[in-house]
C-alpha cells in the first residue's frame, strides 16, 4: 500500500537531509506507528506520502501510484485515497459536525444522496450520532478529533494518516481515539500514526517505525516506543 525505496529529502543544499535513504514497505491493512523526536523527519515522511513535497531521490509508491511520476492535476485524486487527521483537528468553525464531514464529500463532487447516507453512518461509527448538529466550539477536544476522523474516513480511503492525533488530548481521551483507529484498521484500512505518545505505542503493541536524524533506526513488527529515546 505504501512503499518507499531509497528515499531522501533535502530541503536546503549543504545541510543534512531531513530524510536519508529510507526504505519502508507497508502492506494493506497494517497498523503502523511512526515515532521519533521533533526534527527526526516524521513530518517530512507524512508530507511525502501526501505529495505535499517530492523526494530529492528515491521512489515512493502510494496506493499503487508512483508519486514522482504523478501529473500535477492528478494529485487531488491521489489524496482521495489518503484520509488525514491532525493534532489541531482542522475543522471549519462555522459548520456543524455533520456539515464538516459532508463538506469533504461535497468538494469531491459526491451526490446529495451519497452525502445523506454516508455522513450519519460515519458519525455513528465514531460515536457522535448525538452531536451531529453541534458546532466545533460546543464539542470537547476528543469529540472534535472524532469529527475530523469521521471526515478523513467518510470517503472510505484505503489509507489513513494521522499526525500527532492525540497531541492535544488527555490520556483517557487518547485511548478512545486509538481504539477508534483500531476499529477503522479492522475494516481493512491501512493506518499510519505519527506520535510522541510513548504509553499509547507501548500499550498497543503494533508495528513501530522509529526515525532519528532522518534515518530509520528501528522497524519492529510488535514494537514499543523504545528504551533509549
Amino acid at each position: 500500500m505504501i512503499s518507499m525505496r531509497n528515499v531522501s529529502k533535502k530541503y536546503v543544499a549543504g545541510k543534512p537531509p531531513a530524510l536519508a535513504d529510507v526504505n519502508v514497505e507497508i502492506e494493506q491493512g497494517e497498523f503502523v506507528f511512526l515515532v521519533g523526536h521533533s526534527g527526526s523527519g516524521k513530518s517530512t515522511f507524512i508530507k511525502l506520502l501526501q505529495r505535499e513535497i517530492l523526494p530529492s531521490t528515491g521512489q515512493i509508491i502510494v496506493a499503487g501510484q508512483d508519486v514522482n511520476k504523478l501529473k500535477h492535476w492528478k494529485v487531488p485524486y491521489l489524496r482521495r485515497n489518503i484520509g488525514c487527521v491532525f493534532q489541531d483537528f482542522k475543522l471549519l468553525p462555522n459548520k456543524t459536525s455533520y456539515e464538516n464531514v459532508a463538506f469533504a464529500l461535497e468538494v469531491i463532487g459526491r451526490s446529495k444522496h451519497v452525502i445523506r447516507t454516508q455522513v450519519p453512518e460515519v458519525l455513528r461509527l465514531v460515536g457522535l450520532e448525538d452531536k451531529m448538529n453541534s458546532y466545533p466550539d460546543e464539542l470537547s477536544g476528543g469529540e472534535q478529533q472524532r469529527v475530523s476522523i469521521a471526515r478523513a474516513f467518510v470517503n472510505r480511503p484505503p489509507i489513513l494518516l494521522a499526525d500527532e492525533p492525540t497531541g492535544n488530548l488527555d490520556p483517557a481521551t487518547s485511548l478512545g481515539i486509538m481504539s477508534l483507529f483500531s476499529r477503522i484498521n479492522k475494516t481493512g484500512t491501512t493506518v499510519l500514526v505519527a506520535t510522541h505518545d510513548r504509553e499509547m505505542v507501548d500499550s498497543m503493541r503494533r508495528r513501530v517505525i522509529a526515525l532519528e536524524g532522518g534515518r530509520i533506526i528501528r522497524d519492529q513488527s510488535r514494537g514499543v516506543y523504545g528504551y533509549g529515546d
Partner: protein
Amino acid sequence: MAMAINVGYFIKESFVSFRRNWVMSLGAVITIYLSLLLVGASVGTSMLVNQVVRSVEEKVTIRIFIADGAAAEDVQALQDALSADERVKSIRYVSKEEALSEFKESMAESPEIVEQLEVNPLPASLDLELNNPSDVQAVVDDIKANETFLKICDRPDDPEKSLKYGQQVVNQLFTFTRILRVVMAVFIVMLGVISLIFINNAIRLAIYARRKEIGIMRLVGASNWFIRTPFLMEGVIQSLIGAVLAIGSLAIVQLYALPKISEAMPFLPLSLSGGSSVQIALILVVGGIIIGLIGSGLALRRYLKV
C-alpha cells in the same frame, strides 16, 4: 446530476464570498462599471459621429462661382459638360438674384446688413451634387483643368478660390473622431488595468478569507478546478454587475438625454438604431467577462497554490 449540484454550490459560494468582502467587491464593481461605461460611451459616440460624418458627406456639394460678366453660352457649356459626367448626380444654376435672396433668408435676424448693400455682391454659381462623396476631390480636379471653367470663373487669378466644397469639413470631422478614439482607447486601457488590479485584490481577499476551507479541500482531494471555480465566478459576477450597470446608464442616456440633444440640434442624426445598442451591450458583457476572468485568474495564479 453531479454537475447540477456543483453549479449550485459554486454560485452559492461566490455570493457568500461577495457578501463577506463587500467593500473590495464594491470597489471592483465600480471600477469595472466606470471602465465599461467609458467603453460603451466611446463606442456609441464613434457610431454617432460616423453617422454624422456620413450625413455630412451626403450633403457635400461643389459650388462653382461664376464671374458677373460671364457669357451665358459658356455657362451653359460648362453645365452641359458636367451633366455628362457620370459622377455628377445633379447640377443647378443659381443666379445672382437667387443667391442674394438665399443670403437674405440666412441673415433674416439682422436684415439691416442686407439692406445696407447698394449692389448685389454675390456671384452666380453652379451647384453640383455627386453620386458618391468620395469622388469630390477627383471632380474638383477635373473642373480646375476645364478651360471653360477657367474662362468664366469668378477669380481667374486664383481658380481654386472659385470653388467651394465640403471636403475640408469632412476631413476635419474624421481627424476629430480619430483623436477621440485614441483618447478613449487610452482611458479604456487605463481603467481596464485599474479594474484588473481591483478584481485581483478582491479575489485575493476572498482567497484569504477562505484559506481554511481551501486547505481542507486540498486535504480531502478536491480537484484544482473545483477549488478555483468559485473565485473565477466571483470575478465574473463582479464584472457582470459592472456591465449591467454600465448598460443601464447608457440606456438612460440614449432614452432621455439623446432625444433632448436632438431637439436642440435637429440637423444632427443623433439616434442609434436598436441593432447598434444591442451591439454595444454585447461588447460590454463580453468585455466584462474577459476582464473578470483575467483579473481573478491572475489572483489565483499568484495567491492560490493548488
